[in-house]
Each structure stands twice: as C-alpha cells, then as structure tokens.
C-alpha cells in the first residue's frame, strides 16, 4: 500500500514535470507575455546552490551564460564539497564574461559579471574562526572584567569578524537550488536571513524558461522583514 502511494506520487510529479517543461519551452520562446519583461535590477545578488555530484562544468558555464544574457551582475556559486571552488580557474577561463568577486564589487556597476565561489567550509567553520577572532580581540582589549551576563558582541561585529576570515560576502536576494530537493545544503547561514529559496530540479535538466520563471517569481515578492 505504501509503495502504491509513492508510485502514485511519482506519476503526479512526472505529469507536473511534463507541464513545467512545456511551460518552460513557451517562456523561452517568448510566447508567454507575463515573462517578457523582467525587472532584473531587483536581483542584486544571486546564489546558485548545486548538488556536488551534479557539478558538470559545461552545465555551469551554460547556466552562467543564460544569467549573463538576462543581465544578472553578481553570482555566487556554491556546492557542499567545494568542487566548483576547485574548478574556479577553469570556469573563469571558459566563461569570459566574468571576473572573480572582490569585496566592494556590489557597489560598483561592472560591465562583467562577478563570480564568487563558496562551499560548506564557508559556513559553520567560518563562524568558528570568526568566534576565535572576536575572542582574541576581546582578550587583547583587556576589558574582560565585565564579561559575565552582558552582551559583549553585536551582530555587526560578528559580520566584520566573518569578513576578516573570508566568510561574509553579500546576502543573496535569491538562491536557486539545482539538485534533487529544495534544501540549501549548508549555504553560509549568516547570509541567507531573508533570501528567497527556489528549487530548480537537477542541473542536468536545467531549462532557460524555468530560470526566467524563477527570477520573475522573485521580482513579484514583497517582504515585510518581520514588521
């Protein structure tokens, strides 16, 4: 009975995927009016999370080309195991529309796309390193007598400490997950407080139309930020 239930779910998803593929085809041909004009300027920083086993550089380069065509200026590529980080030079060489992200790039209007590469070690481990930076600073400042019970560190000090250990790039507005499930796979926690997270399916079956749809959906979102 359980197996029957899950086979039914598989069939439902199969039908949904066919419908999505058709819609994606129509979007990429420009036949659906709604998706014709994207307010791309709303997307300041985009993160792409890819399942490490799926990290084919040819697919990644094609995806970057699509993003460049759409006018996306700043992209962070993330996978848990750091395979994209290791292929950084190869990707930058093959995709000549981008440069490596430097800290102040988001403020400047660049002709080329900036690319950041991140992995699991830029998440929790970076926070541990930043904790040590803060601890050292505090010991050296000599004001440890007021340690107990009060708030010693602020979130902005934490942000600065993360920057010094290389773990605090900009907060992405949108995070697209290319993998089997909608799961952010350990993208640095400090950076995804209000990031919209969308699931795109496996990288090998990526579609241009689905990318447009995901970005369009993002541009339609209104956030209250808790208020």
């Amino acid at each position, binding site marked *: *009975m*359980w197996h029957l*239930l*899950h086979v039914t*779910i*598989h069939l439902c998803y199969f039908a949904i995927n066919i419908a999505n593929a058709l819609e994606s085809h129509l979007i990429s041909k420009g036949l659906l009016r709604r998706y014709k004009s994207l307010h791309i300027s709303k997307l300041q920083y985009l993160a792409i999370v890819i399942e490490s086993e799926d990290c084919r550089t040819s697919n990644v380069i094609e995806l970057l080309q699509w993003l460049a065509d759409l006018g996306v200026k700043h992209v962070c590529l993330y996978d*848990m*195991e750091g395979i994209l980080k290791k292929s950084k030079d190869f990707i930058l060489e093959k995709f000549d529309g981008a440069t490596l992200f430097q800290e102040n790039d988001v403020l400047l209007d660049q002709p080329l796309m900036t690319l950041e590469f991140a992995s*699991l070690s830029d*998440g*929790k*481990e970076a*926070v*541990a*390193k*930043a*904790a*040590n930076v*803060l*601890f*050292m600073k*505090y*010991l050296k400042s000599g004001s*440890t007598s007021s*340690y*107990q019970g009060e*708030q*010693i*560190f*602020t*979130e902005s000090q*934490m942000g600065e400490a993360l920057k010094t250990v290389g773990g605090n790039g900009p907060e992405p507005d949108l995070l697209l997950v290319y993998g*089997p*499930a*909608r*799961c*952010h*796979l*350990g993208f640095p*926690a*400090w950076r*995804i*407080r*209000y*990031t*919209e*997270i*969308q699931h795109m399916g496996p990288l090998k079956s990526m579609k241009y139309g689905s990318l447009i749809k995901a970005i369009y959906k993002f541009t339609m*979102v209104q*956030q209250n*930020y*808790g*208020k």
Partner: protein
Amino acid sequence: MERIRERVIQIYGNLVSLLQKCIFCILSVGPIPNHIAFIMDGNRRFTKKCKLMEGAGHKVGFSALMSMLKYCYEFGVRYVTVYAFSIENFKRSPEEVQSLMDLMLKKIEEILRKQSIVNRYGVRVIFSGNLKLLSEPVRLAAERAMLATAKNSKAVLSICVAYTSTNEIMHAVQESCEEKWDEITLLNSSGAGYGLISLGGYEQDEMDHLIKLTDIEKHMYMAAAPDPDIIIRTSGETRLSNFLLWQSANCYLYSPSVLWPEIGFRQFLWAILNFQQIHFYLDKLRKQS
C-alpha cells in the same frame, strides 16, 4: 433534531479520525521525520481575507497549531519547533506586539492544563530565544511552563520566541567565549596557566582554534533538538526569515500556498510524502557533512 445533528457530526469526526489513523499506518512503513519545524506565516492575511477583527487570525492560527501538533505527535514525530515570535516582530506597532504577548500568555496557561495536548502526549515544552527581551509576565509564564513540563519525555515542543538565527549564533559565540574565559582563568589561578592570560603560552595555530565548532553548537538555543528534517512555511513564501538557518543545511523546505490558519491534514500529508521521497538523499547528505 439538534441531538441527531450532533450525533452525525460526532460520527463524521470519528470517521475522519479513523481515516487519518489508517493513512498514518500506511505512511509509517516509510521513514518518519524526527523533527518538523513550522513558520506560522499568514495570520494577518487570513484576518484581512476573512474580514475578521484584528487579532482573530492569530487565534484561529493557534487552533491550526494544535491540529498540526496532534498530527505530528500521533504520527510519531518526536520534535516539533514553531517560530512564534521573531526579534524583528518587535518592530510592529506596540498595540499589535502587546496583543500577541497577551495571546501568548493566555495560551501558555492553557497548554499547561490537565487535558491539554502537552499532557496527553507527554510533551516537554522549551522556549528558545532571547527571553530577556520579553516582558516579565510572559517570561515568567514561559519559565513556569518549562519547569512544569521538564519531566515529560515522549516528545518535545520548542517554541521560538524573541528568536532569530543570527541572534542565536551570536549568543552561542558569546557563551563559548565566556566558557573559554572561565577555563583560562581557572587554569591561571591554579598556577598551571603558563601565562595563558597573555596567551604567550599558545602557538598561533592553537590560538586560532581555542573555540571549536562543537563549543558553539552546544550553546545554541536549539541544542536540545536534532536538526530539523522538514521546515514548513505557509503562505507560499520561500524564505526562512532568520529561522533555523544554522540547523537547516540538510532539511527539506516546504512552502504550501495556504495561509497558516488554513493549514490542515492535506498539507501535513504532502510534506511527509515528499520527505519520504527524498529521505534517502537527505540521509546521505547528513552522513557526508
């Protein structure tokens, strides 16, 4: 006539309950999530949509929460976490914040009563967050609830109030630093310090790793619960809004489009089915990291 109507409703209720139990039986052949977290979004939109009085959406939302807790505990989910009040929510109008605090106080008293869900399922209640930011009556009620349910051991309900992930991480880092400072002071005063206060006795490499990841993790507000398997955020919103960012690396994120007060068995079922479909993959990720 009235009695017949009541009887029909009772029979219908029993049938629905029986059907739900049957579905749970079938589902329990597959993996059961150990921890489900909820972001209860959409209470104010529900109030507007149904043209109710201000605050009514949150009251209906509370009933929805009770239903979801019942489904979770009946199905065998041991840990449930809810995002009840974010630190950012303090920026709302003082009247709204006060009415939410009043509702929280009233509901804390309610859940401690004998026949409530907490006692029926043996649930230990934990309030996670910067409780010092709460007004005294609410904080004391929360502490009373934690004390009263401390011996319950069948399930855990973590209620995140005055909580954000970044505040949780910050707090854990601070607690780790204080603990390390106490350790160093103790070593120093026992004469075994090797000049630890000036840190002359440490190599640079050791100084970079005085505070370990495990120190930080044990000081998180949510340390009493394992990482969530599913996070459900209603109203179709796809962001986490500073909730469980640290703990959700290998967690299935589900965003049904219904508003929180409208959530029901259908959405719970769909979340479980999807979780079971990808459980093998999520388990593999957990073992890797």
